[in-house]
């Protein structure tokens, strides 16, 4: 399977898309994730999680290198997602890998804060 199954988000200055292939899901976020797209990001992450469960995903890669900024409301969306994966039984858990850019300042600190919530399932590639 290789398809763009999730409803892509393209609103204001934010875009999100996802594809799945062989129990691996690739998510790409670009632009600015702020209050104006919080609801859409919530819905998008719920779809990603549903698909990850459906295909028994081993790993979800989230490429944020071109995500200029993420506000605290959108960080809460990620807290929901990470906490939900943590609550799964072992068989339903999957790894979340953030692909980040060292030159985008919010990413080092915010992604580290998210990773500390669940070191066992989250890793960060810079």
């Amino acid at each position, binding site marked *: 399977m290789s398809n763009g199954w999730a409803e892509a988000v393209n609103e204001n*200055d934010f875009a999100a898309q996802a594809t799945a292939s062989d129990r691996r899901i690739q998510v790409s976020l670009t632009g600015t994730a702020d209050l*104006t797209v919080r609801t859409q990001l919530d819905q998008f992450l719920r779809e990603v999680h549903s698909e990850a469960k459906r295909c028994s995903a081993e790993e979800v890669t989230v490429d944020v290198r071109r995500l200029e900024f993420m506000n605290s*409301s959108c960080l809460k969306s990620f*807290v929901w997602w990470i906490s939900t994966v943590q609550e799964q039984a072992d068989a339903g858990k999957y790894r979340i890998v953030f692909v980040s850019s060292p030159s985008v*300042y919010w990413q080092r*600190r915010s992604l580290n804060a*998210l990773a*500390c919530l669940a070191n066992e399932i989250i890793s960060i590639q810079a």
Partner: protein
Amino acid sequence: MCVEWMTMPESQTLSFGLQLQPQSRMVSIVRRFVEESFEKIVGDPEAVFRVSLAVHELLENAAKYAVGDKTGLSVHFESSDAGASITLTNQTTPKHIERLRACISEIQASEEPFALYQKMMRRSFGIQEESGLGLARIRAEGELNLSLEIEGNTVTIVASCSPRRRMPT
């Protein structure tokens, strides 16, 4: 939106103030304005980012909880030693004032801002109402101190770091 700039190259001080309607679509516009303007002058992008992070989170609080159509924002940056202060003033409800007071007291009392930030992240799971996460983020990620002044239904939040202490890189 009304912007007033003051630049004093001799003392390497950069300040501006603006009045705006607290609308969510304005928040990122103002943050970018701060980032792009200060980066050209200050030359310390990480310090500028910390200021712009505070601007974004404070303005977003105003967009969510302010009443009335006027929010005042001022930013003061001392490029010689990276001292900075960001001040936001708006009117809000008594309920929000009490939540702000409790949240900022908790942040001020914490000796471990990052640990508190993590605790507030966990606490926000499944809760729709205000979590105070943006304020905790200013303290933990931006490494800025927070203070609150209340006068009637007008609140002023100041995020600042000491001019004597250079922002860590």
